């Protein structure tokens, strides 16, 4: 038996296993041995050899129910959230927030930031007169020997 015949048998092999001839060939041919192990792995892992399996009774009804659920999800509007109590003005409120309040908040935040920057700048650079006053009035320095 050559490799070509062995491969043909490998494609057809079932629960009865391989013929002795193919097994002998595979024992002497590493490539066909690998092919045989691969074929065995595929058959074992692909549902064995049972060809009579059927879905459980009522399968069509379950499919129908699945379709109904999918259709319901597609058709039903999104349920109002509990957070806003399901009130319709939520949408109008959001729009008003986006149009008016959000820009106003951005402006206020910018102004606050500018004011903070100005204050920090003025506080970090004291006038020279202030420094002199500090040095003159420092009692700790004067108490030094």
């Amino acid at each position, binding site marked *: 038996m050559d490799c070509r015949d062995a491969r043909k048998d490998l*494609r057809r092999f079932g*629960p*009865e*296993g*391989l013929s002795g001839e193919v*097994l002998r060939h*595979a024992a002497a041919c590493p490539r066909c041995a*690998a*092919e*045989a*192990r*691969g*074929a*065995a*792995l*595929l*058959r*074992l*892992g*692909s*549902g*064995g050899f*049972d*060809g009579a*399996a*059927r*879905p*459980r009774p009522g*399968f*069509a009804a*379950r*499919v*129908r129910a*699945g*379709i109904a659920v*999918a259709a319901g999800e597609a058709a039903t509007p999104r349920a109002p959230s509990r957070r806003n109590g399901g009130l319709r003005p939520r949408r109008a409120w959001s729009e008003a927030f986006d149009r008016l309040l959000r820009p106003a908040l951005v402006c206020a935040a910018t102004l606050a930031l500018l004011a903070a920057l100005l204050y920090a700048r003025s506080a970090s650079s004291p006038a020279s007169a202030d420094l002199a006053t500090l040095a003159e009035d420092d009692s700790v320095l004067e108490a030094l020997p």
Partner: protein
Amino acid sequence: MRATAISEGNSDLADDASDASLAARAAAGDAAAFDHLVERWSPRVFRLALRFFRRPEDAEEVSQEVFLRLYRAAGSYRSGAPFENWLLRIATNTCRDRLRRRRVRKEMVVADIAGDAGAWLDQALRGASQEAGRAEEARVLAADLLDRLAPKDRIVLVLMDIEGFSSEEVAAVTGSTRAAVKVRALRARRALRRLAMSIPRRER
């Protein structure tokens, strides 16, 4: 391959109504026609899903998703093409998507496999019967290992080597060309060989 027994009460539809006419009626909103298609084709889709998803509940979930997709796409079916190919394309795409998601979640290390685990492969090759518990364990391990293959590779291998499809049939089902399927099969077999050889051999 076609199942003719229709169990639920679709009395206005003949059992031999063509798939194309049923699909057209289903697309127009005829629930009975859609049920007829489900009854007729669910065993085929379920068995294909079982090839990829060992647990029957997983295979059934995938089958349900297939028919949900079929319901949504029924209007796009063109009666000139074989219905089975169209359905199997939806089924293989659904299986591929699921396999991708599962592959991302599960990363198994071959080195973790117990030293004597290769014994079941040798037993399968010889056709030796195994104890039921051991046989189930072997199937679980084999299925886990196959999850390491690229989903497209696995689909081609299952369709060709397990379902017995020709490369032309696989091309029709996957929407690919025959040449592309052959190249894919070649690569997939190489990956499968590599995977099988990474399993520790039986101690002799």
